[in-house]
């Protein structure tokens, strides 16, 4: 790529016709990412998008980058191989709630704990779209679907809670159609060295329409969203008059109103994205009882696995000297037959 040449969204749009349903949240995410790519300081040829199976996993076909549409649930494993083989590549994983948390739950768990330097975007629409509407591991209890005509019974999994539990060192949440929020979250995810996990609330207009309206609706946004900013108090409401306070007696997070019952701004929890316990508590906040946190829940970098793999290898090489097959074959006990 010519460094002088300024790339645009168009340079990242492949010639393939996008085949998601009209109104799918994936369109908005695609556009946001295509817009973001030219702003990242990465040569285009080093960008790689890896996906599994499902609606979201068609994503790589629409990006004019290197891409690999793999098999159901296995994108984190394939991406691990890509990144380990060539750590210079900028590897993005696109997955969904079924792909990443059901069939591929084990791989997601391990890629996060290993901390391989990947951006993992989980489009959560709380439903199986491509297989025509069965409930997913993030579907709320009572979801009616072709496989749960009387309503789903099993308890859903919270993707950010899962990620934090798995040992992820960057966990964030955003919303498909909110480019202004999603873009900086993705920038942060990209900047982060190690595995970064971003849950994106994504609307499926065909099988689960409006499932996130409670948080997406602009009219309610001030009440339904807890916008996270490192170092800022956890306040929300039309005039930022409400806040989250920790009750140290029972470790509960309570909603309080500043100026009422003697509550002052200093009583409100201040977001510390390096605090794992706080991140976990925030990840568990769920509407309508609580505003739902969006933004970076947790960011606490450590050396990534891929960096350590090569560091260890370099160390061994320094100690052992250059590799030679004939030397290897003649190592250990040998004897000569005259």
């Amino acid at each position, binding site marked *: *790529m010519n460094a002088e040449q300024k790339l645009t969204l168009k340079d990242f749009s*492949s010639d*393939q016709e996008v085949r998601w349903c009209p109104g799918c949240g994936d369109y908005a995410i695609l556009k946001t990412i295509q817009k973001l790519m030219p702003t990242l300081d990465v*040569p*285009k*040829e*080093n960008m*790689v998008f*890896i996906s599994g*199976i499902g609606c979201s996993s068609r994503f*790589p*076909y629409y*990006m*004019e*980058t*290197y*891409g*690999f*549409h*793999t*098999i159901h649930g*296995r994108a*984190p*494993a*394939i*991406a*691990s*191989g*890509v*990144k*380990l*083989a*060539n750590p*210079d*590549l900028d590897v993005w994983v696109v997955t969904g709630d079924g792909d990443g948390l059901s069939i591929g739950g*084990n*791989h997601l*768990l*391990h890629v996060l704990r290993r901390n391989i330097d990947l951006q993992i975007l989980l489009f959560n629409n709380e439903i199986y779209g491509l297989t025509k509407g069965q409930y997913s591991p993030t579907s709320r209890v009572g979801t009616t679907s072709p496989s749960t005509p009387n309503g789903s019974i099993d308890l859903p999994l919270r993707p950010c809670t899962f990620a934090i539990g798995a040992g992820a060192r960057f966990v964030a949440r955003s919303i498909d159609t909110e480019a202004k929020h999603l873009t900086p979250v993705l920038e942060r995810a990209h900047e982060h060295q190690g595995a970064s996990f971003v849950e994106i609330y994504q609307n499926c207009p065909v099988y689960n329409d409006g499932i996130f309206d409670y948080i997406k609706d602009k009219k309610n946004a001030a009440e339904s969203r807890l916008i996270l900013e490192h170092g800022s108090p956890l306040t929300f409401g039309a005039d930022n008059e409400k806040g989250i306070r920790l009750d140290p007696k029972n470790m509960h997070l309570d909603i309080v109103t500043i100026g009422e019952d003697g509550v002052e701004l200093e009583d409100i929890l201040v977001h510390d994205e390096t605090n794992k316990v706080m991140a976990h508590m925030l990840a568990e906040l769920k509407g309508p009882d609580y505003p739902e946190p969006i933004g970076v829940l947790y960011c606490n970098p450590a050396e990534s696995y891929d960096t350590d*793999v090569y560091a*260890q*290898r370099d160390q*061994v*090489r320094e100690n*052992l*000297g*250059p*590799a030679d*097959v*004939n030397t*290897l*074959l*003649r190592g*250990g*006990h*040998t*004897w*000569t*037959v*005259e």
Partner: protein
Amino acid sequence: MSVVEKVAKEETAANVVSDVVVRFAGDSGDGMQLTGNNFTEATAIYGNDLATFPDFPAEIRAPAGATFGVSAFQIYFGSEDVTTAGDDVDVLVAMNPAALITNLGDLVNGGLIIVDNDSFTDKNLVRAGYKENPLEDGSLDAYRLMSIEIGKQVLGAVKPFGLSHKFALRCKNMWTLGLVMWLFDRSRESTIEGLKAKFSHKPEIADANVAALNAGHAYGETAELPTGVEVYKVPKADVMPGLYRNTTGTEALAYGLLAGGQLASLPIMFASYPITPASSLLHTLSGQKQFDVITFQAEDEIAAACAAIGASFAGSLGVTSSSGPGISLKGEAISLACATELPLIIVNTQRGGPSTGLPTKTEQSDLNQALFGRHADTSLPVIAASTCADCFDVAIEAVRIATKFTTPVIVLSDGYIANASEPWYVPDFNDYEPFPVQFADDPENFTPANRDSETLARVWAKPGTPGLEHRIGGIEKSFETGDISYDPDNHQKMTDVRKAKIDGVANYIPEQAVSLGNETGKLAVVGWGSTYGAIHQGVKRCRAEGMDVSHIHVRYMWPMPSNFEELLRGFDHVLVPEMNMGQFVEVIRSRFLIDAQRLNKVSGQPFKIREIEEAIKALLESS
């Protein structure tokens, strides 16, 4: 014929025998594998040809004295070419009653038994299932018995080193090794060196073991021994001059992968998940970081296969390895590699199945899985290693085929050759012709569907190359553009092309040769994989008796060599011995409509030479 009888027969050359089978057997914690390996090394250095058969239980430390916990190591060595671990045992070392009762059946009449009588306690006798002590009730009268208080001997020998009772007794295996080394005039030097290196941080342990080894040897020299038991001479084998080492199949396979990577000018990414008996490949490669190899212990078999595929996409050579059950899990990923036409090597170190089956025992029952065990039409090359040393060349060949044809390749090894060791004429790596991979780098007319017109290999374009940005995936692709295509004619065409590519591999592999015997005749014994040694010896013996029989051993299981059918048609009969219920024989029958006969064994043990001989004779007599 027992050692003793052999000696008697060859009285003129006192104590000279042409070949001997020794088996060390004890509890799985008794160190029998270590003892066997040391004896093997000393024997190789001495100059005998040899083959070994480690046979150990799946339990790491079974309860002491239990019959299911007996671990054995057999070595067959001699002055002529040795290709199997031997049929019958001449010398049995039994460290406890369980080891004696489970191995006595293989001992020849008049064979020598060495037992540690300290371990023949009432408790151990009962646990092994003995009602009477066999050392005392006369039931071993048909054999020569050396019943020694090995524990007591060892405690005396290592006393100066101040070890605890428990640690002192752990030197029993070295004492026994010393005695057996005396018996066959082996040098203790390499074992002593090895002990000193192994326990360099604990010199008192090293010294105690060396003292035990020497004490066992001295015991042989000085003690009063049963009649006929004295030092045997096994003359050096007449082998090709040159440099030798011992190798297990796993070691040779690992080295072959590293060598293949260099010949292809490719880094190797080895991704695996622990499974018996395949794990040692991961261990070996993990210790070779000075080479261009990254090893990755994945979270499961599927992830291992997928990480290898991801690495191949990124421009390394992805290699994954497992045994049958793990290969099943990798199946979907292997089909993805077939669909996306990426190079990939899958090593299957086969074991007894189905399911968990016999994890530490050998079998060849995953051939059908290798050939057919995936969804849809996913033909891929399958090659099989026949001996420990052969694993080296087979691995290089797998790299060559995988990269030349951009295809997954399955390598079949098995628990026998993976763990057994044999002397290896060390090859000179400079003799191997490099086959460097050419990655695409020209954006002009590039599509990911571009193919080599000769080999039909799909272009390999790695991320990081400017101007070649493209997408691949599991959905069917247009033959022309590489874009997604659901077109019916295109799917037919792509399926045909993928098949033609693999069929075409047959044009780039050597023609099938005859290993032993004539190129036409009455009977061809057709084998593949680790049955090589037994078939070779069986055919050799039958030919020595004047029978018209040849041995053909197949490496390229799929596609098969282009002359293979014609070669088989030159024989009146075809016999296919396999350690499965008849998988390759069915391929030959269905592929060529040749009435091949079967010889099957799935006991977890390799074929005995005798079994091959008997089958040859039976077939020739009935025809």
